[in-house]
């Protein structure tokens, strides 16, 4: 063989050795580096559902039943994981993209193994308190990605799974005194009670009750706090649509500050305001406007712990929460996961689970189920305390826009929280 051929052979051997060495090196990582995204059929399918606090106990119990059942999508068993998170808090995380949605120009198959692994905890679905939170999240992503991430129509559209509304809950002893004094329970009369300089004795109550104490959720932990402030504004202005200018009105701010000044403790309040209300009883709050389902879930506990049950009243301006089950439609979750989420959504809307929701004080989204359809319906159980199966004719507050929400949050931070 000529010298040239030897050189040729040598170069080939050298190249083969380099390639073989690189293959060996990459095999040592136990990770096939740079392998393309392959759609493999998994053994099990895990989906994570961010769930608003008021429906979390019911949805979690439904998820346990679902996981114990024989549910699958295309033959792959589904496991549902529930993460409880307040709707407004979740919106803040979507806004900051804390969950790690991909930029518009990045595809999952372009990611490294580690980056793909980081997406494994990405929420498959979100059940916020109200559909307006979904709209705000969509607006945020539309700016960033140029498209909606939760759909409002089609197969994957957000569907309400239960509904509830804000109602007054007052301890019986205190409610009787306020009714005698004012005749009606609304934000205006509650404001009058809150600013009574002589406290309860001035209103006709016991001296030991101290001052009138209002319960309002902390808006930085519970979206119900903002809903309460919007309801206050609605009654103050006697209309359903509240603007930033309305919030900025100095007279309104004085009135709002007087009302909020009757709250005993925002700092220690947890996200579960109705539970706090029950645990600490009339010592921290004589009454407040809270979600009907939260109040109903704690009615028995309040009677057991404090002997003084709650009385329920319905306001003229009502804020509704409809808990839309919203499937994330971006590429961060697989088609199988999205379909698994739909399967769980169908399960939640089934007659059986809608009846189960009654035990948590939620009004069914499924119109086939009446609120007193089951024996343990909290609506039937607490009818004598003012709970009504059919909500009296009221006016629904309109959903606030992002600027109104931000203005209220900032007002709260500057004037109440600090």
């Amino acid at each position, binding site marked *: 063989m000529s010298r*040239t051929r030897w050189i040729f052979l040598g170069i080939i051997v050298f190249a083969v050795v380099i390639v073989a060495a690189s293959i060996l090196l990459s095999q040592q990582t136990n990770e096939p580096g740079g392998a393309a995204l392959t759609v493999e059929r998994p053994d099990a399918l895990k989906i994570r559902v961010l769930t608003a606090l008021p429906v979390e106990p019911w949805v979690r119990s439904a998820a346990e039943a679902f996981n114990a059942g024989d549910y699958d999508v295309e033959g792959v068993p589904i496991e549902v994981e529930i993460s409880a998170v307040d709707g*407004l808090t979740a919106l803040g995380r979507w806004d900051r993209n*804390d969950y790690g949605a991909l930029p518009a120009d990045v595809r999952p198959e372009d990611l490294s193994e580690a980056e793909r692994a980081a997406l494994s905890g990405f929420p498959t679905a979100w059940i916020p308190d109200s559909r307006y939170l979904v709209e705000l999240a969509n607006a945020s992503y539309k700016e960033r990605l140029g498209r909606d991430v939760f759909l409002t129509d089609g197969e994957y559209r957000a569907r309400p799974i239960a509904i509830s509304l804000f109602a007054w809950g007052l301890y019986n002893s205190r409610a009787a005194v306020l009714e005698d004094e004012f005749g009606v329970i609304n934000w205006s009369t509650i404001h009058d009670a809150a600013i009574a300089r002589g406290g309860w004795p001035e209103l006709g109550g016991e001296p030991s009750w101290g001052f009138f104490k209002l319960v309002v959720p902390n808006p930085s932990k519970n979206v119900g706090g903002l809903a309460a402030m919007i309801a206050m504004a609605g009654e103050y202005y006697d209309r359903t649509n509240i603007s930033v200018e309305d919030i900025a009105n100095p007279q309104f701010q004085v009135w709002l500050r007087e009302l909020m000044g009757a709250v005993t403790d925002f700092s220690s309040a947890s996200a579960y305001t109705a539970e706090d209300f029950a645990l600490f009883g009339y010592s921290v709050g004589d009454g407040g406007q809270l979600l009907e389902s939260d109040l109903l879930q704690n009615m028995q506990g309040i009677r057991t712990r404090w002997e003084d049950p709650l009385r329920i009243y319905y306001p003229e301006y009502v804020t509704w929460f409809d808990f839309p089950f919203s499937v994330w439609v971006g590429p961060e979750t697989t088609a199988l996961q999205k379909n698994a989420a739909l399967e769980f959504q169908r399960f939640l809307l089934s007659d059986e689970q809608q009846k189960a929701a009654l035990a948590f004080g939620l009004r069914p989204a499924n119109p086939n189920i009446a609120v007193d359809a089951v024996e343990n319906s909290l609506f039937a159980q607490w009818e004598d305390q003012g709970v009504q199966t059919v909500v009296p004719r009221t006016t629904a507050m309109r959903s606030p826009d992002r600027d109104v929400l931000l203005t209220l949050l900032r007002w709260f931070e500057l004037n109440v929280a600090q």
Partner: protein
Amino acid sequence: MSHRRAPSQAFRLSKRNRNFVAVVGAVALSILLCCTATYRSGMWLTDALRNRPDASAPAGPTWTADSADLTVAVSPMMAPVLSQLADDFNARNQTTPDGRNMTVTIAAVNPEKMVVEALGNPPFQAISPDSSLWLDQLEQRWTDAGIPQESDSVIPLGQSRTSGQVRYAVSPVVIAAWEEVARELGWPDQAVGWQDIQRIATSDPDFKWNHSSTNTASGLLATLAEFYAGAGLVRGLTAEAATAQSTLDYVQAVEATIRFYGEGEEVIVQRLAAEGRNFLDAFVGQERVVIEWNRTHPGERLIAIYPAEGTLWTDHPLALLELGASAAELSVTDNQRLTYRAFAEFLTGRESQLALLAAGYRPADLDIPLDGPDSPFAGADAVDWREPQTTLQMPPPSVINVVLDAWRYTKRPTNVYLVVDTSGSMEGEKIRRTREALAAFVEQVQGSRDRVGIVEFASSVKSFAPLSTLDDASRRDLLDIIDDMQAIGGTALIDAVYAAVEDLQSQRDDQAINAVVVMTDGLDNDSRRSLNDLSRLLQSHNGMPVVLFTIAFGRDADESLLTRMAEAGNGQFRRADETDIEELYRIISTYF
């Protein structure tokens, strides 16, 4: 005729040309293969580097990526109960899906220290202070510590240091008084309030009461109640009202009646048990202390007075820390999250809730009646489960911080001598750790009217730095003295303590808490005075008591002598070693 090569001929290259093409082909192929290899190797190297442990990471506590071991920092009062429940939880041998054992360890940590440690690289993954107000303080400090400003259109929520908060038990803060004292105050027929206690404390020099330091919920509440009373308010306390001169004068007058502060209610209970009825007439503490005392101590009962103006609840939250915000901090593992969730469920389960009720707490499970069979609330008049009727309004964190600052200037002042053994046996790590502990103590004393002195002794008193108010210059002088301490000589313990007590008594400052904190690691072998001499000096105070805190550093100290010295000085004896001497000095500083 043009000379045109036939197609077959066109490809029939010369031998030289064929070799040239082969070499070019081989080189091209090699380049291609090498590029592929380089790319793959580069990818491998990138992945390897990406997965390599971060060299800058965790210098502090570490745990493995699949650890299911959870350490929970718990306020000292709750720690014994929670330790028992953690043992019960661990005995269940629950495992994570990947087969790791879920275990929970309880560490007793003062709430204020818990907040400070939770801000960066803490040795625990979850916390349970005695009140949610500490969680609020933590979140506030976490936010202040450097979350970047967000765009105006972003909802400013969702970035928290804690998550998964649950409550497992609550207990209202009450004024615990002996039954005889409670009846004199008007119980059970009349409402008794903070102002009644403050009035009697300022008008009756024999009335002895106490609230713990403001680093516990009960101590903070008692202080807030004083500021409210001083400002003539029961709600809406503002920074301006809290710092008005009339408010500060009132608080200062009330604080002057405090016998001592201290680290928490458990110490008060220990001292009540040791010294009996005459130690205190009343103190501020959780309702469960009254239940526990009456259950375990036959004789005169304690009565829980629910203050008429309102009180505060200790609500014992449990929260998971969201660690891993910096490279120097490990994240909580998925398995630790599972352990946290399982432990939270266990604590709120019926079995644990009944155990908490038995321990005198009000369980978070509202289905458990407080007046049911076996409940310590049932049939008792010393506590009343229908109370409290109202609470004081909790001011926002900014006002609380103002109150805490103002309290440091109005609280009862302290004259304290640090008596320090620097004999030869203290050489090495002991003297180094002692210097650090003393320096930390001097830094922690913040009261504008507090005075600190140092007595360094070995075979005799080596140096005597008289009491001085701690402004920047005097603080620096004391730190220099501490820095210069050298271990050499014998041990003349009693002589040094005698000198400190004698000097305190000569000051005749009966408005202040006068105290000596003495630390030694050995036996007294050089003193000219005896313990009897010291006891006689302490008893001859003519109405101006000096409290003695004694610390046995290491195992060679004369614990018997130190215990008797502490008894003679109505103080406390404590043990310490190199690992906890600084923490002990910090705890003792809460008494001042």
